[in-house]
């Protein structure tokens, strides 16, 4: 019996060592990392309201702001993520994210129409804080490229949602509703700021 068990164990070990079994590992981590990257921006209210505000503000500004801001934000956000990945620290990230919600909410509420480069600069500065947070909060063992693509796409889709909402700007009632929404975002930002300073 002992001899049979020993042979069975040897055969089992060989079967396990047969490399074709490794096919079971094919790309499984990629999809998990993509979904965790995709879910990251939409799992925090602070990120969601800021991204929506970028889209709404772009819609209020009209062309070319309607596309310049959503193009600027992911690129500069990725730069913030890049800084986090290469280990460059950024102090006060949570405060920066809260201030971004306040600033963008106020911009929507007041229908601010600064020069395009000032709007792009403002959005870019806020984007660095959001990107740094995404880059620094990568779950251990995740596939970095899939995670990155996931959170870039989710961020872009949030902007697209904001732009879609902002299209009601063409009607008077829509303009009022957008300004109320901007005020609500700014108030939420104040709450985020309170929480960030208190912690």
């Amino acid at each position: 019996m002992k001899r049979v068990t020993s042979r069975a164990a040897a055969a089992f070990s060989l079967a396990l060592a047969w490399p074709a079994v490794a096919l079971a590992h094919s790309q499984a981590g990629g999809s998990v990392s993509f979904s965790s990257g995709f879910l990251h921006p939409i799992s925090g209210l602070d990120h969601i309201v800021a991204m929506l505000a970028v889209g709404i503000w772009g819609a209020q500004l009209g062309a070319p702001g309607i596309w310049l801001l959503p193009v600027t934000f992911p690129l500069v956000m990725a730069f913030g993520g890049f800084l986090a990945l290469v280990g460059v620290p950024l102090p006060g990230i949570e405060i920066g994210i809260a201030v971004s919600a306040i600033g963008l909410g106020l911009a929507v509420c007041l229908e601010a129409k600064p020069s395009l480069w000032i709007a792009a600069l403002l959005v870019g500065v806020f984007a660095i804080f959001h990107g740094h947070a995404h880059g620094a909060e990568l779950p251990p063992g995740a596939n970095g490229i899939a995670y990155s693509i996931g959170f870039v796409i989710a961020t872009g889709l949030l902007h697209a949602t904001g732009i879609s909402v902002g299209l009601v700007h063409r009607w008077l009632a829509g303009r009022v509703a957008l300004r109320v929404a901007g005020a609500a975002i700014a108030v939420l930002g104040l709450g985020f700021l309170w929480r960030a300073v208190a912690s």
Partner: protein
Amino acid sequence: MTLARALTRFAVAAAVLGAAPAADAHLVTTNLGPFYDGFAHFFTAPEVLLPVLALSLFAGLRGAAFGRAVLLWLPAAWLAGACGSLWLAPRSPPLAAAGVTLALGALVAADVALPRRWVAGFAGALGLFAGALAGADLSGASAPLALAAGAASALFVTTALVAGQVTSLRAPWTRIAVRVAGSWIAASGLLMLGWALR
């Protein structure tokens, strides 16, 4: 157990393991054969897929003649690069892959007007580079030529569909949407750069 018997068992085990097929650990298994495994692999390797998507979008934005040039040069150069690297098996340079993705995504986002021969040159260079990357992935697999042919077919279909669709876009907002997609690709390239430097 005598030493001779132990050595014999070790030799048998080594022979079995040595004759085993390649691990294919990073390949998608479709159960439809190596050609379709290669076809699927193209869509699950973002470092290869993203620059190809970016160049196809860019060619589509510039017009039909640019699309035809990319459709001619990109798959041909890709196949040449893949076949070359099946034997040379170079190491994947993640920094270069990230840089190429970033640069091509930025080209789409900026919608830069470039001469057609430059774009054809980009297609040839990208094809060789991306093909070499993919070939290095496939070099340890069984039936690597069928895998490479499948991946090259996926690249051809992707380039034709994407460039063709973008060429047909007329409404201004649709071209802007393509440029936004380019900015997403550039952003992903920048993050890939961060991962490579990490």
